Structures are given as structure tokens and as C-alpha cells.
């Protein structure tokens, strides 16, 4: 083979590999959109399931997922960003921080069902929160911590060292330096981590299984101590636990869940590009 032929074969192979990766995603999403789109409408999104869940909509489950995602954000964001600032700016390199880092890497690899069981033991039973939005948000928040901490720390470390040096040389304290010249520049990266974490939290079933999700609960929650339905668990229920489910409802629910996760990602990219455009260096 000549070099040109090798080149052609190589680029054909690489294109093929890329196609193998992308095609299933396109196929799955396409299939769900085609099958689910006719079901989705204002009524479907706002009304509660009825007739043994074989009719009606997904209103309570959708709202529950929104609540859980917000709760997760409120719990994990301050903790994770604080931890990232500590690791990147304050903690030196020593055994303690090495242990903390190792723990974070390992936490990221723990299966979500383990978080679910931990949440059951810790928040639901030990702290006596019961199966509630609070317990579920805490569990999901815990699960998203590692990814948010890691990406936020990386974003903070990527801020040029000369900004810190310059700011300090102008008599700013360490915190003033972080507040004015580190966090603003790390913000896009931090937001990426947050949204990555949230979109995972929005779609997970296992962590909410024992901590918050209700099998069937058409009433909307009154407080963070109430149970709620949630989209991923609802999808699981209507796909496996209810006989005689119309397929359209299942696909409609799946598509809604996809759209929730997708819109989170979109919001993140928009915020990110806005913040990036405002800052020039």
C-alpha cells in the first residue's frame, strides 16, 4: 500500500469508529422522539396519572424531578465549590489532601444504588427525615459532589497564576484574590461541573428509590418533608410494574426525561458562553 492508500484506509476506519459511537445515540433518541412526541402536550405534562397509571399525564413526576434537581443544586453547589476552593487554593500537598482526593475519585466511582442505600440508612432512618424530598436531595447532592468538586477544582487551577500574584502584590488578601480574580474566571468551568452533576442527578433512579420516590402519588408535595413522584422512577414503574400500559405513555415519559436533562445541558452552555464572552483575556 502506498502512503496515500494507508491514509485513506486510516481515515475511513476512524470515521467508521466515530459513526459506531454516534449512530446508536441518534437511533435511540430518534426512536424515542418519534414514538413519544405525539403523546407530549400540555395536558400530558400537567395532569396526574389516572386509571391505574394507564392514562393521564406525568405532572407530579415532572414537578418532583424539578424539585429534586433544585434541592440537589442547593445542597451540592455550596459544598462542592467550597471544597474545590479549599483543595485548589488553601490545602497544601500533604497526606490529608492526598486522602481527600483519593476519596473524591473513589466516590465518583461508587454505583448509584449504593448512594441510594446510604441515603436510606443515613438520611431517611438515622436522621429521621423519612422518605422525603429533603432526604432524596441530600442523597442526590452527595452523589453529585465528586464530579462537581473535580471539575470546579480543575477550573480554579486553570486560572493563570499571574492573576493571583498580581492581585496579592497589590495588597489584596488571599480571599479578596480568590473572590475577585479566581472565581470569576473559574465560573464557566465550575458551572459545567454543576450542570453535569445535576443532569446526572435528574436522570438517576437508584438514589431516589428508597429515599423519596413515590410509586403513585397524584397529590403535589407541600413541603420538603413530603414524598414525591419523580420522572426516572415513574418511567421504571410504568415500564415494568404496570400491566397493560399504553406504549405511548412510556415513550412520552422517556422523551420528557430526555428533554429535562437536555435543557439543563443547554442552559449550562448558554450561561457558559455568556460568561466567557463577558470576560476577555
Amino acid at each position, binding site marked *: 500500500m502506498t502512503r496515500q492508500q494507508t491514509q485513506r484506509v486510516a481515515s475511513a476506519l476512524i470515521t467508521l469508529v466515530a459513526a459506531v459511537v454516534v449512530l446508536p445515540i441518534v437511533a435511540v433518541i430518534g426512536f424515542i422522539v418519534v414514538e413519544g412526541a405525539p403523546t407530549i402536550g400540555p395536558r400530558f405534562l400537567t395532569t396526574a396519572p389516572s386509571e391505574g397509571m394507564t392514562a393521564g399525564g406525568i405532572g407530579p413526576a415532572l414537578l418532583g424531578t424539578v424539585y429534586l434537581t433544585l434541592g440537589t443544586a442547593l445542597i451540592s453547589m455550596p459544598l462542592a465549590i467550597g471544597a474545590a476552593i479549599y483543595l485548589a487554593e488553601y490545602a*497544601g500537598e500533604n497526606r490529608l489532601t492526598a486522602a481527600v482526593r483519593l476519596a473524591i475519585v473513589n466516590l465518583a466511582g461508587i454505583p448509584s444504588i449504593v448512594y441510594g442505600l446510604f441515603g436510606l440508612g443515613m438520611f431517611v432512618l438515622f436522621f429521621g427525615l423519612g422518605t422525603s424530598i429533603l432526604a432524596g436531595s441530600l442523597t442526590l447532592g452527595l452523589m453529585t459532589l465528586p464530579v462537581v468538586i473535580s471539575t470546579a477544582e480543575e477550573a480554579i487551577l486553570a486560572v493563570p497564576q*499571574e*492573576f493571583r*500574584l*498580581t*492581585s*496579592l*502584590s*497589590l*495588597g*489584596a*488578601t488571599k480571599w*479578596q484574590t480568590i473572590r*475577585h*480574580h479566581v472565581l*470569576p*474566571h473559574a465560573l464557566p468551568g465550575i458551572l459545567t461541573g454543576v450542570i453535569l452533576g445535576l443532569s446526572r442527578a435528574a436522570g438517576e433512579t437508584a438514589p431516589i428509590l428508597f429515599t423519596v420516590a413515590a410509586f403513585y402519588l397524584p397529590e403535589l408535595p407541600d413541603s420538603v418533608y413530603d414524598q414525591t413522584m419523580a420522572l426516572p422512577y415513574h418511567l421504571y414503574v410504568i415500564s415494568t410494574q404496570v400491566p397493560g400500559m399504553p406504549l405511548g405513555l412510556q415513550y412520552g415519559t422517556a422523551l420528557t426525561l430526555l428533554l429535562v436533562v437536555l435543557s439543563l445541558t443547554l442552559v449550562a452552555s448558554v450561561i457558559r458562553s455568556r460568561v466567557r464572552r463577558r*470576560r*476577555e*483575556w
Partner: protein
Amino acid sequence: MSLAPSPAPSRDEPVLSIRGLTFAYPDGTAALRDLTLDIPPRQVTVLFGPSRSGKSTLLRLMNRLSDLVEGAHREGTILFRGRDIFAPTVDVSDLRRRISMVFAIPTPLPGSIWDNLTYGPRMAGIRNPDVLADRVERSLRQAALWDEVADRLASSAFALSGGQKQRLCLARSLAMEPEVILLDNPTSGLDPISTVIVEESLSELKREYAIVMVPHSVQQAARLADTAAFLLDGELVEAGPGRPMFTLPADRRTEDYVTGRFG
């Protein structure tokens, strides 16, 4: 102890007194060895010598930016108007406002020209817009930049040319109303014309401030030095009035260096 108001110093008392200063980086390389030197007021003191002779390290010790080097080892000390700058009670932020640094590469901070100039004062808690505006104008005039940027203080500091950026950094240091200005090779990246402008503003500034400078070249050292100190391998070879140092150095090594035999 605060570094604040010191009793009126006599006219020629040194502003900074370096006393037996030894500094080693965490990997063990000694950057400075038992160095003793006085920095006089209202003069340009030039620290010169070949690269790695410890000039920049010494400069960074003077306003404790050296604190950022974790695991470094220091002996001896530096007195600022008679007070130990390494004493645990010293407010480092206050010290760095009074002993201000300009780096070799212009380091504008993201934001407008105004943001850059007011950053130091704002971090010190000055909020009054009139005071800030006054500081901005005065420092820009001192750094010979006012005429060029007076009408666009709100535009990005990154839009300035290299020479303007460096004068902005100088003005930014001056806006804190420091007592000592440390200049670490401030003209290294500048064209000859910008270099002249910066050098001229230095000869104005030394009426008010003590200036400690690491020069770009021996020629620049000879042009600017009122007092000169020649460093070699972290040791002070000799120090004294500027002109004789470059025409009739006392030490053979200084002579070899200023005449270009090594370096």
C-alpha cells in the same frame, strides 16, 4: 505590630535594611547567602548581576511575595523603617501596599483601565469615588500615561500596547501611594521608545519614592543607578554609589561583569 505611622525618619536613614538574609528554595538551592544591604530613600537602587544571582528573589522577599514559595528556608531578615517585615504580627497586605511591585511582563488584570488602577485602593477599603478618581489621575500622570488613556478609562486594559500596559502596571502600583517601588526588570519586553519613557518617569518618581530595580542590562543599570549592588551567586559582591561602580569597581568580579567578560 502594625507597620503604620512610623516616627518621622531622618532624611537619609535607609528605608529598607537587609540583614544577613539567606534564602533557599524548597529543592535546597540557595538563592541568597548572608546578604546585608541598605536601601536609601529617594534614590534608584539597582540590583544587578548575571541571571540566577538572586536579584529577583531578593526583590520578592522585600514585599514578602516570597511567602508564596512553600517550604522555602529563610534566615536573617529585612527591616522596613526599622521594623522586621517577617514578624508574625505584620499585616502582609499593608506591607505590599507600602512596598509595591511591578513585574517584568506587564500583568494587567482582566477589566478596564479604571478597574486596574483602583484595584489596590479598593481592596484596601477605599470606596469614595472622588478619592479613587483622584488617585487614578495622579498615578497615570506620574507614569506618563494620562494623556494617552484619559478619555478611555472604561475600556479594557488588554487593549493597550505593551509599553502602555507596563506603564499602567506602574501607575497601578503608584495608585496605592506606596513608599517603596520594586521593579523587576520592568522594561524587558518594551521597545526602546517605551523604555525611555519608563526610565524618564523613574527619574521623576525617585524624588518621592525609594525605587529598587532589577535592570534589563548593565547599560540600563549604569544609566539609572544612584546606588548599585552587584550580586553573584546569591552573594553581594559590592554595593555603593552608582557611577563609580560602573567606571571604577572595587572588586575584580564586578569589573569583569560590567566590562562584559562574563554574564
